[in-house]
């Protein structure tokens, strides 16, 4: 076995196992959309296998070199397709990127054939510029700018007879775009820094390649980085998924699943913070006749009603107020607005008309209000929370009794 192949054996095996593992991960968790990544890693694995083809097999090394060059473009393309959300990339993005990949693939193929015919290189570059300009109407401007500059540089390198630089700069541009794109698509997360670093190093490897080839001292250094950063990309990608899932779980733990509002736990945290800040207002809202809706129209209709009510209530709040659903048909608002206008607005909101064909078409509610520090002098912390809750509850129930009076 040639030494090159022997040295690449560990990476090849590792990439094979990783591809299999990621594929299984995807199969088992349908909601993790990592197809483009799995594709990228799979092509990386295939490219790694090229090392095992003996030099000069069957007649020349050219086909292997061309395959490796094209594989690099395809890997970049797969990374660029990743759109940061847990879903499929838009069709338009796929078209634009595939269109722009064509001239790059053509260019690297010509380069792979060791052609020195400058006209063919220029033709690719001009085709590339046309594709980039055509994408102006379909895709982001950043992409067009990157492609435009790249093709101008490519033309410059061709004129300097530096064909290697031309081919590698064209390939690097896709990775650069993938890095920029990922940076924009992902939120401020650790995984974003990792994946963008990895893609930038990947792009940089292409940009410095023509220079490194001329300076043997740095060849091993560059090769090592090249070997490592594939794995770094996979780690980064898992980090993104992990952070996403973890934040999602935290959100689930502190929010009501149905309405997406805060749950009791989060409400109590916010309430404590509000009490510490000096003054706040607690508003309890209990819907009347909700059980009847649930029983007569089914709990799906009841769910819709709750969602609708929670939306309307939410629209009345100031940015720092917390609206929580603390059980069946009970809502709580913790407000730090400081004036009593919110409670009035909430009271005015009922009877609330809804789109549901509920009995009577409108939703009634009882509202109980307690204020800190006026309503519980001398108390603080959880003691204050309990006192205020009891008071607001009592006031709400007093109202409920009055509301029930006329029907008796």
């Amino acid at each position: 076995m040639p030494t090159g192949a022997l040295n690449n054996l560990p990476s090849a095996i590792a990439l094979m196992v990783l591809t299999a593992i990621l594929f299984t991960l995807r199969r088992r968790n349908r909601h993790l959309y990592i197809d483009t990544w799995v594709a990228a890693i799979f092509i990386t694995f295939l490219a790694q296998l090229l090392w095992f083809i003996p030099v000069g097999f069957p007649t020349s090394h050219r086909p292997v070199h061309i395959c490796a060059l094209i594989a690099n473009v395809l890997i970049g393309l797969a990374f660029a397709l990743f759109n940061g959300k847990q879903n499929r990339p838009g069709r338009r993005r796929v078209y634009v990127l595939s269109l722009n990949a064509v001239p790059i693939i053509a260019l690297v193929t010509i380069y792979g054939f060791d052609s020195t015919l400058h006209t063919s290189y220029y033709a690719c570059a001009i085709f590339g510029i046309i594709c980039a300009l055509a994408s102006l109407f379909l895709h982001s401007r950043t992409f067009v700018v990157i492609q435009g500059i790249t093709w101008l540089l490519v033309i410059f390198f061709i004129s300097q007879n530096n064909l290697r630089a031309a081919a590698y700069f064209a390939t690097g541009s896709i990775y650069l775009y993938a890095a920029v794109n990922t940076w924009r698509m992902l939120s401020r997360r650790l995984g974003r820094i990792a994946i963008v670093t990895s893609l930038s190093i990947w792009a940089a490897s292409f940009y410095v390649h023509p220079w490194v080839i001329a300076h043997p001292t740095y060849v091993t250094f560059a090769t090592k980085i090249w070997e490592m950063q594939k794995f770094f990309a996979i780690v980064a990608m898992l980090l993104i998924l992990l952070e996403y899932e973890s934040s999602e779980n935290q959100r689930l733990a502190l929010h009501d699943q149905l309405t997406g509002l805060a749950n009791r736990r989060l409400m109590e945290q916010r309430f404590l913070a509000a009490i510490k800040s000096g003054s706040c207002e607690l508003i309890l809202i209990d819907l009347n006749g909700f059980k009847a809706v649930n029983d007569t129209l089914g709990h799906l209709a009841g769910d819709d009603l709750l969602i609708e009510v929670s939306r309307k209530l939410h629209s009345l709040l100031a940015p720092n107020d917390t609206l929580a659903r603390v059980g069946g048909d009970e809502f709580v608002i913790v407000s730090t607005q400081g004036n009593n206008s919110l409670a009035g607005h909430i009271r005015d909101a009922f009877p609330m008309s809804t789109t549901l064909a509920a009995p009577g078409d409108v939703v009634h509610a009882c509202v109980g209000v307690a204020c800190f520090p006026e309503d519980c002098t001398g108390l603080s912390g959880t003691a204050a929370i309990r006192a205020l809750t009891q008071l607001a509850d009592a006031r709400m129930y007093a109202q409920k009794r009055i509301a029930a009076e006329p029907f008796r």
Partner: protein
Amino acid sequence: MVDTTYILAQLPSRLALPLLLALLLVLRRRHPELATRNFFFALAFVCLAEFGNSIGWLPHSQQFQLIYLVAHTVLIDSQLIAALLLAAHRRTLRRTGPLLPAEFLLNAIPLFAFCTLWGFYIWTRWPYFLCIAAGIGLLFSTAAHGRRGWRFASAGIAVYLVAFGLIFFGHFRGGAYWMLAAAFAFAVWNIRHNLPDRTIGRFAILCSLTVWSVSLLLHAGLVNHPKWLIVADNVWDLQKFFLCFGILLSLLEEEVHDAHWAALHDQLTGLPNRRLLDDRMSEAIQYSKQTGTSLAVFLIDLNDFKIINDTYGHSLGDFVLSEAARRMKSVLREGDTLARLGGDEFVILTSHANTNEALQTFKTALTSALNKPLSISGHVLSLTGAIGMARYSYDTMDEGTKIAATLLHIADKRMYSSKAAIRAAASETPTTEAMQFD
């Protein structure tokens, strides 16, 4: 002189691990809920081992002799500690709990001493034998005290005996690396048991640690074959990525599993929520349609729960709910479902009660399990529930998707009428504890 090309070639792999470590550190800071502690410290020790290895860059000369020895010791010992930290990983250990359990620490001492001896290139046999004797003794005593099984102890003793043989025949390097490989094999064994079955994260970590263990085993033999040393070097470079990869994967799978669980269960009691109940009900109805067996739905509503919640606070109310769930669970049989509908409403789905008598027996068992006074933090509360029951296909002949809703509705009505009956009875004899809240 120091060779620039060599240093440049080493630099990327030396920088990779600190970089991964930094990522993991930030991850730990931002997501303290993830069980990353042991993993993080294990990787930190691997990093230290690599640092020890890097001292090989220094020019070889007598004046650096001590630094070499210390660096070599760090290389060996850090790997040992990393293996033990990985072995001690448990999902439930988030921030609390010891980094290494006491019996690990105790058994690690002779192992550590053994590795340190080799780290300083001690070429005398008796100190190694001393370590082996101490190690075997400690294994015996931990097994005798029941901290670990005899199987573990005998495996450990076998490892020590092989090490004894290697040292006896003068294979000092072989002995030391044999011990390290055994430590990693131990980590493999523990991880296999401590991480959830059939997860790919576990598979990745196990792959990584197995390769690690095998490379340590082969190391002593490879030292004299430069061609294979390069391959071994490449394996080592990938190894840390692979380990990191496995760690992240296993954390990811846990999070996905948690999210899935949370979507279908009630957080407080851990019971199925309404969504899962809907699924189970339609399954059960389908089944009873096909087989002609009957299906019973019990709806349970705790009496005066709101009063308990308002008087004593939500934390006590939460306790009451968990206790009620626990009591009701105790009467369930295999295949029954107990779900929390929300608030203080629970549903039991059972296909075991086919006859009227069986249903009555079940209801009596449920009532007697649930209706017992509950004493908590100085209060004695009467915990009672009103029960309503509906049966398929006895109570409803509805077709299609509405059966489940109809069953619950019927059970709800019956539950309310029984609640009204209880109230009426209670108002005649206002002596029960529950009444004091009214």
